């Protein structure tokens, strides 16, 4: 086993790991923010809201994330030359980068999977509780905020923890659109040094550690949250 390359690449690796982690955190937050309305629309929305929400979740869950990332990055990019004004727009400095597409693809993917989870969670809250809330004179919004959403979240939390680990496992795909995450750094070590297995093994250990931290974090939140409800 050869490990002499580690000191040389440690700064790059730290940067890459940081990029992986903020991509993960931001995409989970944005994705979850989208998943709540997606789940609610499917669980209780009128047909014209429920149907598009269901379709969105089906399409996201039915196609590979790698393909979604490439469609967003290269597919959209291939349309740019037809619209020259895009390069003059204020958004161009952002559209030129690769990470916005990575973040968008990861967020939409998380939203698709969690929209389905939240649908089930919203549906599983007993109707009687909601009716009780209304009987107390809560407004519709207050019923949602104080009864429906917390109960659904408590039910969804164990699943969300697992799904967030799955999201972590999906992040290395962004390396294929030039985002330099921790996986891309390991690839660079392989290219520079022709050492194949060691960087991959270290990478596996790093992902396991992060996955462990995520699981631990969710367990702590779960314990607090569920106790708070009781």
């Amino acid at each position: 086993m050869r490990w002499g390359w580690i000191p040389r690449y440690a700064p790059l690796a730290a940067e890459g790991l940081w990029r992986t982690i903020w991509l993960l955190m931001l995409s989970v937050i944005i994705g979850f923010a989208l998943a709540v309305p997606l789940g609610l629309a499917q669980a209780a929305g009128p047909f014209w809201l429920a149907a598009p929400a269901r379709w969105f979740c089906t399409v996201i869950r039915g196609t590979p994330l790698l393909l979604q990332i490439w469609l967003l990055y290269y597919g959209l990019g291939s349309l740019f030359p037809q619209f020259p004004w895009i390069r003059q727009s204020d958004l161009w400095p952002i559209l030129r980068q690769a990470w916005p597409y990575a973040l968008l693809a990861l967020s939409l993917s998380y939203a698709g999977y969690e929209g389905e989870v939240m649908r089930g969670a919203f549906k599983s809250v007993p109707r009687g509780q909601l009716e009780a809330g209304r009987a107390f004179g809560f407004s519709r919004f207050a019923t949602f905020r104080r009864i429906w959403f917390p109960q659904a979240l408590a039910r969804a939390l164990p699943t969300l923890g697992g799904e967030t680990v799955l999201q972590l496992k999906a992040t290395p795909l962004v390396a294929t659109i030039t985002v330099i995450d921790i996986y891309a750094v390991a690839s660079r070590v392989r290219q520079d040094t022709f050492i194949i297995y060691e960087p991959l093994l270290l990478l596996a250990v790093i992902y396991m550690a992060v996955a462990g931290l995520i699981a631990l974090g969710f367990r702590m939140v779960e314990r607090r949250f569920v106790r708070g409800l009781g």
Partner: protein
Amino acid sequence: MKKLVLTASVLALIAGAAAADTVRVGIAAEPYPPFASPDAAGNWVGWEVEIIGAVCAAAELECEITPTAWDGIIPALVSGQIDAIMASMSITEDRMQTIDFSDRYYNTPTVIVGQREIQIDATPEGLAGRVIGVQVSTVHQAYAQHYFEAGSELRTYQTQDEANQDLVAGRIDATQADSIALDAFLASPEGAACCEVKGTVANDESILGLGVGVGVRKGDDALREAFNRGIAAILANGVYEQITAQYFASSIYGE
């Protein structure tokens, strides 16, 4: 253990032992026109594909073209999934620590192609502050990392096609690659519309290498010798010139 043996034998069954004397020649699974790319019927075509056929015939080798991911083509060779690499791979010191090479079969200059509307040249100063795209695991990536990374932003692509695509989209200012591969891109309507050759990079043989050769496993001298014989034969009998004339205006064998 029993289960492992079972799995292994099941795998061995589906794998099937290919004829032992077939030489599996690895080419990059990603299109690299005009050297090797799949056509709409699923066949691999291009200058290098024809050269593989000619060299193998001249060396009396039974070759089987095996598309392999470019980024993992050296691991595939080392781990025995393929027996040789003919994928426009430059002969460099770095690679020779891991694999052996035959004599070269072509050698072309390295150029920078960039957006028409910007003023850049092929020097570190000329490219300062610009975004440069290169293909992963190539001599161009190594060169750009060595000379340009200090002053410019580098983006690494899985395929040269994707770097070209981002040049068309305007996400990068320039790309560095083999002149012939980029000529093919500049001949396309999209390439002609957006981009032009900005110059040839200063040569550095220690990075850019000594031309393109056949990669073989270390110590596989019989195969390396066979490829050398094949290359020498088609250079001598005019087959090399014949194939080249179908694709390019002049010879690409190099000085």
